[in-house]
């Protein structure tokens, strides 16, 4: 599972794609997502995937994206088999199978190249309520802390004789209770301390907080956005004017 999740977890990078304005990365992934849905031919789907693979190579994350694609291919195969069984149409079945890969890759590329900090900025740019954005920030920020807490609690309970790996499924689930209770208690205590620290640093003092980060569209942003828009335009054009819409 960790192997798969690697295809969605951000790691710091210095590539041109990492340095793009997070809005450009979001726009690109959204456009590729929609283009994948609009595309009515295998050729268009291949174009989308080739574009995403090219960007992944530029972002030096090709191996991680390839890993995601390999895993996704299993589900894609399943989609293909089910479709061919029901529709008996090779083109449509192939299209749906490749579409699934394209959707996952477009999402994956966004998440592995966009830091949580940038995600927070994007949420703020979309004027989401401050509390919602901060809830997201806190949830992501404390993942490593909670993981460390969990490991420490597990070690402590194991040293007191708790056998986590023994017994049937129900027994194993019940064995997790001595892990979960201290973890929840820790989290409640932590949330109290967090609330005090937030108040002490003027959280909520003004309705529209400012931000230290400054984003400016550069040539690379414009280039990537234009390429994505062009691909989207081709797919949209062929969807409405070239190939008649057929639903199997």
């Amino acid at each position, binding site marked *: 599972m960790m192997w798969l999740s690697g295809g969605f977890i951000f790691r710091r990078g210095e590539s041109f794609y990492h340095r793009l304005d997070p809005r450009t990365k979001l726009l690109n992934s959204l456009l590729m997502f929609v283009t994948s849905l609009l595309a009515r031919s295998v050729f268009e789907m291949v174009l989308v995937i080739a574009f995403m693979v090219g960007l992944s190579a530029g972002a030096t994350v090709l191996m991680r994206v390839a890993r995601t694609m390999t895993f996704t291919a299993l589900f894609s195969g399943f989609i293909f088999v089910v479709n061919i069984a029901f529709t008996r149409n090779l083109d449509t079945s192939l299209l749906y199978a490749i579409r699934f890969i394209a959707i996952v890759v477009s999402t994956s590329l966004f998440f592995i190249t966009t830091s949580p900090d940038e995600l*927070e900025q994007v949420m703020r740019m979309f004027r989401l309520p401050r509390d919602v954005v901060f809830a997201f920030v806190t949830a992501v*920020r404390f993942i490593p802390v909670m993981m460390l807490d969990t490991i420490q609690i597990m070690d402590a309970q194991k040293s007191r004789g708790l056998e986590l790996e023994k017994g049937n499924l129900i027994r194993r689930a019940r064995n997790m209770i001595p892990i979960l209770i201290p973890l929840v208690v820790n989290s409640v205590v932590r949330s109290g301390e967090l609330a*005090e620290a937030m108040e*002490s*640093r003027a959280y909520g*003092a003004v309705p529209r907080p400012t*931000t*230290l980060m400054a984003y400016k569209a550069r040539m690379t942003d414009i280039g990537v956005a234009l390429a994505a828009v062009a691909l989207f335009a081709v797919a949209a054009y062929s969807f409405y004017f070239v190939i008649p819409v057929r639903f199997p």
Partner: protein
Amino acid sequence: MGDILEVEGLSFKYSDAPRNAVSGFNLAIPEGEIVVLAGPSGCGKSTLLRTVNGLIPHMYGGEYSGDVRVGGSSVKGSNMRDLAQSVGFLFQNPENQIFMFTVERDVAFGLENLGVPRNEMRARVDEALGLLRIGDLAQRAPHELSDGQKQRVALAGVLAMRPKLVILDEPTSLLDPRTASELVALVVRLRKELGTTFVVVEHRLDLLMGVADRLVVMEGGKKVAEGTPKDVLFGEEVGTHGVAVPAVTRVQKMLAGEEGVGVERLLTPSELAAAVEGREI
């Protein structure tokens, strides 16, 4: 210089508590001092500190009487926005006061909340990082930092708001002895460079007695001793109030009591060592 902090007849009882956490407390701290607040766990130190930065009565309800003034303004009559700018609070566990994904964003957290314009914010963040000498950590994530570094980042976030009074709640409790000594040296430097007043809650008195201007001892919600570290440590039996008396003081008291050696009222191991060797101090 005037008093930056004035506490007059303060009593507070949490709404669900059977008795007062702080009772009839009086204290006046002149600007620029380093004050150490000591006492056993549960003696009311944290409650007193919460009344200084406004968490009490603005966040915690209860029976409040008396007055706390910071820079002449009553805490009760001020809002948290103003208090956050005049009183900085470094909590015991730095992990729980670092909110953002990079160090520089976290240092900017309070300024963002205050709506400070970006250019000014950038200058103040850089200044705070420079003061704490952690500019090289600016782009690091919190989970990539040591406890000592986290403590510095949290303090930088506090200092970026340019408070006149900074409260440090057991700042060395999670630090190794060397990092703890570095933190104390940092407090002394910041007091010198910025003129900031520090109130430090600390159990390890030996760390701070050489630099503190004043020692206040609490027990059972009341002040039981106050004065210069020399006067309190050598004049009072602070050990009976649940305070760990520094080894340097204990040695001198033992020498005075058992051997009849004159007590010189020295506060640090280096002073004592020099005295024992007969050097000039």
